[in-house]
């Protein structure tokens, strides 16, 4: 009887999406290849990303001023890639905050993200060798309501007056409200999101903005961990292949051949 639970009732694999499968396998292969290279000690170069170079400076400034640091991990769930990237950055930021012995405030909209962040913070403070200074009360849930959360975070900003504000993850219509309030209290703001419609607001009102893919790269960039660096390298490899395929596809369309165009659609 128990085996009946493992019978897939709907289509397990969509046969008309074979190119997506091949692309995913290619991506996995690229990650494994770059990972093995990284573990053999190969030098994995990453160009400078100004927004991430400023992280240390921003944390240092807050420490010097004796003010807290506010880290907002976005408003989406843990199933969102941007949230996962944000939690990754949170770990690196928390480690540095622990080293400086500053205060880190992390308000949440999603209870699952809050729980994952709790573990992330514990790990980070432990790695910094200062688990005793972690204040778990500063990692808290507010409400699931988008604008209720925004009103509360804005209130925290004007009352606690953090010297540095990180807005990293997925944001929606509240992005400008948060970034403007952060700007009004004179905080250094480092934002990052892959929400295309919110990026203009961050670019306009924050000191540094991680645009789309830069958010995903941040974890690897800050930690220089081989596992993360290899996925970044693999993504670059896939982007390179895609770039070449678009150019080839363009040339082929000019001579009336739609093969690459059709391949992209599967």
């Amino acid at each position: 009887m128990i085996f009946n639970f493992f019978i897939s009732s709907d289509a397990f694999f969509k046969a008309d999406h074979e190119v997506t499968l091949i692309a995913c396998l290619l991506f996995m292969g690229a990650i494994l290849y770059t990972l093995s290279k990284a573990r053999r000690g190969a030098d994995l170069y990453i160009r400078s990303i100004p927004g991430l170079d400023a992280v240390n400076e921003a944390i240092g400034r807050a420490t010097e001023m004796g003010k807290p640091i506010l880290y907002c991990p976005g408003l989406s769930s843990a199933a969102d890639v941007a949230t996962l990237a944000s939690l990754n950055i949170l770990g690196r930021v928390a480690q540095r905050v622990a080293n400086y012995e500053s205060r880190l405030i992390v308000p949440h909209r999603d209870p699952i993200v809050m729980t994952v962040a709790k573990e992330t913070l514990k790990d980070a403070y432990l790695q910094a060798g200062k688990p005793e200074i972690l204040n778990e009360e500063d990692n808290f849930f507010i409400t699931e309501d988008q604008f209720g959360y925004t009103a509360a975070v804005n209130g925290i900003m004007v009352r606690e007056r953090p010297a540095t504000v990180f807005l990293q993850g997925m944001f929606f219509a509240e992005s400008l409200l948060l970034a403007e309030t952060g700007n009004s209290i004179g905080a250094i703001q480092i934002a990052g999101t892959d929400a295309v419609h919110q990026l203009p607001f961050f670019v306009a009102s924050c000191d540094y903005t991680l645009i789309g893919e830069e958010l995903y790269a941040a974890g690897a960039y800050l930690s220089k961990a081989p596992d993360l660096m290899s996925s970044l390298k693999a993504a670059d490899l896939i982007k390179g292949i895609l770039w070449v395929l678009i150019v080839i596809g363009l040339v082929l369309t000019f001579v009336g051949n739609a093969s690459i165009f059709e391949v992209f659609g599967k």
Partner: protein
Amino acid sequence: MILNLIAPLGTTEGLGIWIAAFLTLCIFSFLYKDNPFYKFAEHLFVGVSSGYYISIYYWNTLKPNMIDELVKGFKALGQGNTQKAFGLDESGAVMAEPHLRMLIPLMLGIFILLIFISRKNAWLSRISFAWYIGVASGIAIPTAMSTRVLLQAQGSIRDFCSYNSDCATSAGLDPQVATTALWINAFLLLIGTLSALAYFFFSLPSKGALKVMNKVGIYFLMISFGASFGYTVMARISLLIGRLQFLFYEWLGITIS
């Protein structure tokens, strides 16, 4: 300007309008600075929304999907119908109603709560998180690969294919007669895609041809951000107008004609 009657406080509707107007003004007062009125509205908002969401989750998710299913499952088990209790019909096929199969997600949920209850057993929460992140990634990665990568790449050369009758016929597109403006549009799209893609290469130093492409790419990004900013600000202003209309028309009863 026509001055009608201010919303009457004596009726239920009028009272609601007064409360809404008061809370709107409390929130607007943040534009001046943080103050007790804003604090009151903020705390009320957070409290009410938390209570509201707890109620929504209980009645829309927890009760129908978990509690009711478990009750039905245990009832069937009490009647000795093990197949039905685990959500299987008489032939052994899986039914849409999971009944006691919901014990698995219940267990995963309890594992997460262990973080707050038992430090010793908190490690069990990792099983729940691994499951959650694994399933979410499994769903998200192929979708992202298809919609954010392959279909976007296809879109960048779609126009060129449409303008070539052989390519359009082969791809099942409607062949289009390209004007100069359409060609310019298609080339801008292509150059924008390739240069913006080049901007996100992290593995190579920004030098030579790549530096030029990066610059072009960032210009394209900034132009698109500017357009998006203007468009969204317009939408936000319409929200403000909606709120002001409420204050003037419904609360104060002022009609501007």
